[in-house]
């Protein structure tokens, strides 16, 4: 899954107006947006507090109670080797959320400055960066990860690093086009005439103005990274079984063939719910830009100079 939804957004991040921003964010998200936000918070809670809230040790096998039905000691039953499904789902949240977070973070840390520099300098740098991003964009994320895993040993680290590289163009291309749009605006020209330097203008003006646009891409890139990483774990190339991870939990073919598909369904639902929640948040944040475009009263536009 290598494509993000084209949507722009506004996350007010001006420090001096934090509470106003909070209020605006809340009403911009709307009801469904808030529900999505609560779900994500819940998942993050599970990941962070797994040791405290998980009823059992996720890896403790109990061969006497294999495929136990939900209820009693095991709220959601046990898997093929008697491990508590609920605990494994809770612990699974860790790798399934931390992984994508790293991917997005890495691609942001590298992608954003690259995009800003390219948009500001223009000329050859913009051409080179543009070409580089196009090339990386043409390498499907899953293939890059598979290649990395083939070279190093299967495990989360190579998969996350490879995905970060593959996801670089998502963030960078959106940031670069947004930055180029802002750069063409007269207010940037005015700042140049004032005598401000490139770095000052990029940091104080371009970055804050593209933050809403980039902000909307983050939850969507996160959702895609989550799906890709879980797919790799499903294939046994990222998080290795028996460690608990949603992707690993979905890959329980023997249980399914014997008619015990509860674990697969629970893990699948968790992934779908989290991904949909993230995409909803991204969409809501993106939607704002489209509505908030300045509605100009019909003006005599005069001749374009």
């Amino acid at each position, binding site marked *: 899954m290598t494509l993000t939804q084209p949507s722009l957004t506004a996350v007010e991040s001006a420090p001096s107006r934090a509470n106003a921003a909070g209020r605006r964010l809340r009403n911009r998200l709307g009801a469904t947006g808030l529900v999505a936000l609560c779900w994500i918070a819940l998942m993050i809670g599970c990941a962070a507090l797994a040791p405290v809230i998980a009823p059992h040790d996720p890896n403790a096998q109990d061969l006497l109670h294999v495929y136990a039905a939900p209820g009693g000691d095991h709220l959601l039953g046990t898997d093929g080797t008697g491990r508590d499904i609920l605990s494994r789902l809770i612990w699974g949240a860790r790798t399934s959320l931390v992984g994508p977070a790293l991917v997005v973070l890495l691609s942001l840390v590298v992608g954003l400055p690259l995009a800003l520099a390219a948009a500001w300098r223009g000329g050859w740098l913009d051409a080179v960066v543009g070409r580089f991003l196009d090339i990386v964009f043409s390498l499907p994320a899953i293939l890059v990860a598979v290649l990395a895993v083939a070279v190093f040993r299967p495990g989360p680290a190579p998969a996350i690093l490879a995905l970060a590289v593959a996801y670089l163009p998502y963030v960078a291309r959106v940031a670069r086009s947004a930055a180029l749009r802002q750069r063409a605006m007269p207010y940037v020209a005015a700042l140049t005439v004032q005598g401000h330097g490139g770095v000052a203008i990029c940091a104080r003006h371009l970055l804050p103005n593209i933050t809403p646009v980039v902000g909307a891409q983050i939850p969507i890139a996160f959702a895609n990274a989550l799906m890709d990483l879980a797919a790799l774990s499903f294939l046994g190339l990222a998080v290795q079984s028996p460690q608990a991870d949603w992707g690993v939990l979905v890959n329980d073919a023997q249980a399914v063939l014997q008619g015990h598909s509860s674990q697969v369904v629970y893990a699948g639902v968790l992934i779908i719910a989290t991904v949909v929640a993230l995409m909803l948040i991204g969409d809501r944040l993106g939607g704002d830009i489209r*509505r908030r475009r300045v509605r100009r009263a019909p003006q005599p*536009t005069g*001749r374009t100079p």
Partner: protein
Amino acid sequence: MKPLLQLDRVSVSIPIDGDPRRVISDVSLDLAPGEALGVVGESGSGKSMTARTVMGLLPSGSSVAGAVRFDGTELYGPENQGRAGRSRTAAARRDIGMVFQDARAHLDPRQRIGDFLVETDRGGAARKAAVETLDRVGIDDAARRMRQYPHEMSGGMLQRVMIASVLLARPRLILADEPTTALDATTQAEVVSLLDELRREDGTALVFITHDLDLAATFCDRVAVIYAGCLQEVRQAELLIRAPLHPYTRGLLASRPATDSRVPRLPVVPGRPLSAFEAPPGCAFAARCAHAVDHCHQTRPALTARQGALVRCDRLAAIEAAPVPEKVNRP
């Protein structure tokens, strides 16, 4: 003589950011067949909404009160209900042509000029008529132009194509919504004289919407000045320019610099133009009017006939006393 177009106490609200906002309030206006009426107003005055209401190009969720009649058919109003009403309206509207401000945005970029012109009338003769009309609107090498796409023609030429497409339908009324605002001065002069000459030849009525009072006065029979969604003054063009009655018209004329003379300092209409939904009770212009008194802020003056004009102001007597600042000829 029965009016060709009649607006009877028309009020229009359109959804802005989700909630309905009034953009035209209680406009009544008659247009005689073959007459050219200039509609002049600043931003938000509702001038282009008036034309869009007649053409039925309002955004979904808009509401229209009052009645709009064209050549006896009711486009809006009590009788215009149900399927029969709508088909009558559609038939009537085929006799009305509309020219927009930004011709390039109003043409399908993927459609050749020729296909655009004949789209409404597929007949064989249509192409020949289209080429003739392109000549008539002053486009050179019309046959070749038929096969060209909009991106291959200048703004001025595209506007002529729009006019040609309107003339092809042999309309009895042309609504022109700031047709020359986006054009250069020289092109504007050509397009305006073209529009005027062709409509006179065909006896077509014209509603010319603009923010440029002088431009409208040069070729319109009457000019209507609109502010905050309602008409302030409707008058014969020369009289309106030479001896404006309404303080807003006087203010606009005085604050507009002239090309042939200069005043040391421009008299100014303070404040900014309001839309109908922003207008206070009483006279909408009161907040910006130098002659406003308490009465103006409370009661909304009626559009009354005076010296052959229609004016919406209760302070005309007092204003008459104050002279119009004369232009001082100083290099």
